[in-house]
């Protein structure tokens, strides 16, 4: 059987500059992220939760806001683990 587990690192591997997001009209990350980790905030920004990230890259690829996302892999041994249960 297959299962997915998240070994959450202390440091977020992706950060969002909500200032940049405020001027973004598409906010494609909000619907495109397969893990639904981007949430629009009431002030027009975007809130990101890194804990259950698949590390797939969809968000930075569809993002059109220059400098809105900084993207790296979590520190070794952390983040998503696709494993046998």
């Amino acid at each position, binding site marked *: *059987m*297959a*299962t*997915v587990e998240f*070994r959450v690192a202390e440091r977020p591997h992706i950060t969002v500059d909500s200032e940049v997001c405020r001027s973004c009209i*598409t906010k*494609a990350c909000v*619907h*495109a992220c*397969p*893990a*639904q980790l981007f949430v629009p905030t009431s002030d027009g920004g975007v809130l990101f939760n890194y804990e259950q990230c*698949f*590390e*797939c*890259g*969809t968000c930075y*690829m*569809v993002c059109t806001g220059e400098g809105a996302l900084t993207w*790296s*892999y*979590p*520190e*070794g*041994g952390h*983040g*998503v*683990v*696709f*494993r*046998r*249960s």
Partner: protein
Amino acid sequence: MADAVDVVVAGAGPAGAAAALVAARAGLRVLLVERGPFPGAKNMYGGVIYPRVLDTLLPDWWDEMPVQRWVTRRATMVLAEAKALTVEFRGEDWDAPPYNGATAYRADFDAWLAGKAVDAGAQLVCSTTVTGLLRDASGRVTGVRTDRPDGDIRAALVIACDGVNSFLAKEAGLYDEWSLSHFTVGVKEVLALPREVLEDRFNLTGDEGLDIEILGGTQGIPGGGFLYTNLDTIAVGVVLSLAGLRDSGRRPEQIIAALKQHPAIAPLVRGAELKEYSAHTIPEGGMDGMPGLAADGMLVAGDAAHLCLASGIWLEGVNFAIGSGALAGETAVEAVRAGDTSAHALRRYRHRLDDSFVLANHRKLRGAHKLILGQRAQTRYPELACGIAQRVFTVTDPQPKAGMRRWIHAERKRAGVRLRDLVKDGWTGWRTFG
């Protein structure tokens, strides 16, 4: 400063494991660095591996490879609104050596293949993320930086097998023409069914497996779907063009949900329990998306080199990763022995790829990606095919059967397919696949 190792391989997926295996077998000092807690931990795919490439690398691989089911039936399903047309091939000899394809879990397969590299003498270090390249004043790659304390590793050659996002290839300046149109995202659900129920439902015996590729059924977003059988789970998912997904305003999980509700799919997944939901991006641009493959002191292989074949009827990635990784390993052996790992010396890697199935297939199928993800192939042709099939099999008494010519004409009008486009796409398809 002396190099700690001859070759450092970033990423212990199929490309990295194959590169490390070949280089270590030839006696090189090889360090294989993996950011997951074990090889395969970060890797996700639809579910089928075509291991023919292993015949020379690991003879009798089928006695050892961790397999879920041997694919003995390949089906292509074309979905239209409430209609489906399926073509299925059954090959009983695919259930015996030398086999053709198998479903497998990557946590099993990748760990097994990396284990072969370790057996050959490579040193595997897991839970270690490569964070960047070490370079000298001339810009030549001299090793990698990792997130371990004192984690710089110097090597004569770096082989970047760090996957679809390949930050190493980007850092080395090899991706100068990055385009969103070259990438898709695959999202997948793994659904559990008791083994007997699964085998009854799909008419499978023993370790036989079924592979269904689906065209249409992605709600107008360019892409496709799949359904594969494992031992006691089924993998069902969709692959979506990232540009199409971005512009659609839809969520990927909504597209899977819609596919699972299609009348042709719903009975197959009924009552199955969701075990895993996952996603991964896929390099689908073929030759058009391929980065530079060599820099001074560095080679790129597998998904990192965009060497994944997505051409409609042939959807292959793991074999292309192994093939390119092995050739990177061969090139590494030659270059390290000769004491020359300059980009000029490493161009032999490209020659090897050109002479192998890896780039021969990519050259031949260069146009397939655009054809398959085009609007006509995605929505109009599935409508056309299903519509014609329905007319052929509908009994119209007391009217006599109108005949193929009229049916095709009527359905072409209904689906909005111009004869000119049909002929043009048919010719492109024939040149590509013929």
